[in-house]
């Protein structure tokens, strides 16, 4: 069996960073990254981008050396992706924040409202219900992160955690401040409004969870395969007939429900911003489905049936 030689150059400066000889033809990019880390320990595999062309796309960890268009001396170009952090860590941090922050406002911990309100309780039933719903939502997200989701990528750039936490924690504090405020005004249409909103919220939470489970079941443990999701026996998944990313559709629905329940403008704004972001993600996902699968169902739109 012929062994390969691998040289790794810096993509920007073309400086020779590493030379590996006697590399197995069946070696994967992941294994080569590990070998590279040995000579440059500050560049752990997750922050390495190796490519055949300095301006081309990154090679995948699963790619096998002998299946690449290289001679027996392969040249790879290296780009540092910057400090990386695992998706799981980011999700847990960004979701734990709102859970705790909202509760600080709910229990009216000192320095948030005037001293005469410290540790008092709201006299509106809807405020207690809202706390339960908000907390439920983020506990659900934390549990899904730990037990349901199967991530395609292990890591993301470190700066994302600061960006994401500012967004989630900031908005959580902003809405929690008003909902739990001593001068909070309950919904204009009273119990009817709250009941309807709760129904919408619960329906969408169940829907969102159903989609997450369906997506998990599409992909075997440890694999990174991608398949077209289809409706299952669970009626909540029938939204797949009309939409590529029903998880986002249900998520927006949940927040619309919460907005109606609390009749709070900051919640409406959070829902709107979330919707815009999720619509962008859904468009991207929809387009990559179309590119990857010839037989992708034509009736589906990215996030809103027939419209968007």
């Amino acid at each position: 069996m012929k062994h390969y030689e691998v040289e790794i150059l810096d993509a920007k400066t073309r400086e020779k960073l590493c030379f590996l000889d006697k590399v197995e033809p069946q070696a994967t990019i992941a294994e080569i990254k590990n070998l590279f880390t040995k000579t440059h320990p500050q560049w752990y595999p997750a922050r390495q981008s190796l490519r055949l062309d300095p301006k081309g796309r990154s090679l995948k960890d699963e790619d096998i050396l002998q299946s690449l268009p290289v001679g027996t001396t392969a040249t790879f170009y290296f780009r540092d992706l910057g400090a990386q952090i695992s998706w799981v860590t980011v999700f847990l941090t960004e979701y734990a924040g709102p859970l705790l922050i909202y509760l600080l406002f709910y229990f009216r911990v000192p320095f948030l409202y005037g001293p005469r309100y410290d540790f008092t309780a709201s006299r509106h039933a809807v405020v207690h219900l809202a706390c339960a719903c908000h907390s439920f939502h983020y506990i659900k997200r934390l549990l899904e992160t730990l037990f349901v989701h199967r991530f395609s990528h292990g890591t993301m750039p470190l700066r994302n955690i600061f960006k994401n936490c500012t967004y989630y924690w900031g908005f959580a504090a902003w809405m929690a401040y008003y909902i739990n405020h001593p001068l909070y005004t309950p919904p204009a249409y009273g119990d009817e409004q709250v009941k309807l909103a709760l129904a919408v919220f619960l329906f969408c939470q169940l829907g969102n969870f159903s989609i997450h489970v369906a997506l998990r079941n599409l992909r075997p443990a440890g694999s990174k395969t991608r398949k077209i999701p289809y409706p299952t026996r669970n009626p909540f998944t029938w939204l797949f007939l009309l939409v590529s990313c029903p998880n986002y559709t249900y998520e927006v629905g949940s927040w619309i429900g919460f907005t109606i329940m609390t009749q709070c403008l900051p919640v409406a704004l959070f829902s709107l911003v979330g919707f815009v972001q999720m619509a962008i993600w859904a468009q991207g996902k929809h387009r990559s489905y179309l590119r990857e699968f010839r037989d992708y169902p034509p009736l589906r739109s990215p996030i809103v049936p027939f419209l968007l």
Partner: protein
Amino acid sequence: MASSEEDGSGNGSLEEKENGKKRSLGALATAWLIFYNIAMTAGWLVLGIAMARFYIQRGTHRGLFRSVQKILKFFQTFALLEVVHCAVGIVHTSVLVTGVQVSSRIFMVWFIAHSIKQIQNEESVILFLVVWTVTEITRYSFYTFNLLNHLPYFIKWARYNFFIILYPAGVVGELLTIYAALPYVKKTGMYSLRLPNKYNVSFDYYYFLIIVMFSYIPLFPQLYLHMLRQRRKVLHGEVIVEKDD
């Protein structure tokens, strides 16, 4: 930041340095942009002349804002069209950058100078008005000549050098004006929404203005350095290697 200096690419500029490709515009779009830029150059010239005349005749800046406010409001507000130009694609600049710049000008004109009449005679108002006038006359004539494919070097020189002084001067004028307005905002509680209300939200214009003032700290250096980089690229043909993201 109300300076309105954006990316080196002008309105439908045919000397696009960004990717070396020539972008061609339809005849109608070109005609409209030429008209627009000539009109704006003229408008700001008229404003500049009106300000100079007032000062020469009266010897004071008191009442100057009141006397030129109609022209200022008309032409500065009309600049909202520039966001549309970017959105439609006849100008190759980001909608977001243009939006931010035009918005900050609109904010200063309508939400500070117009609404808080007590500060209209502050010297800082004259400072930013003069800065804006010089900046806009330079900028719009630059675009006009660019579209006509006859750009005199001195206009290009002015557009990429005046900002070095004008930009910081404008920021000083704007910040001092907002600062002067603060006591009046606090006293009247204007543009503020208090609890309780049915939207369960509150807004305090006074604290909002303080936040706006602090936001100049991160924003100004970024925009200033961006302009310096553009200047080096356009005037000195430096090849700038952009930081990868």
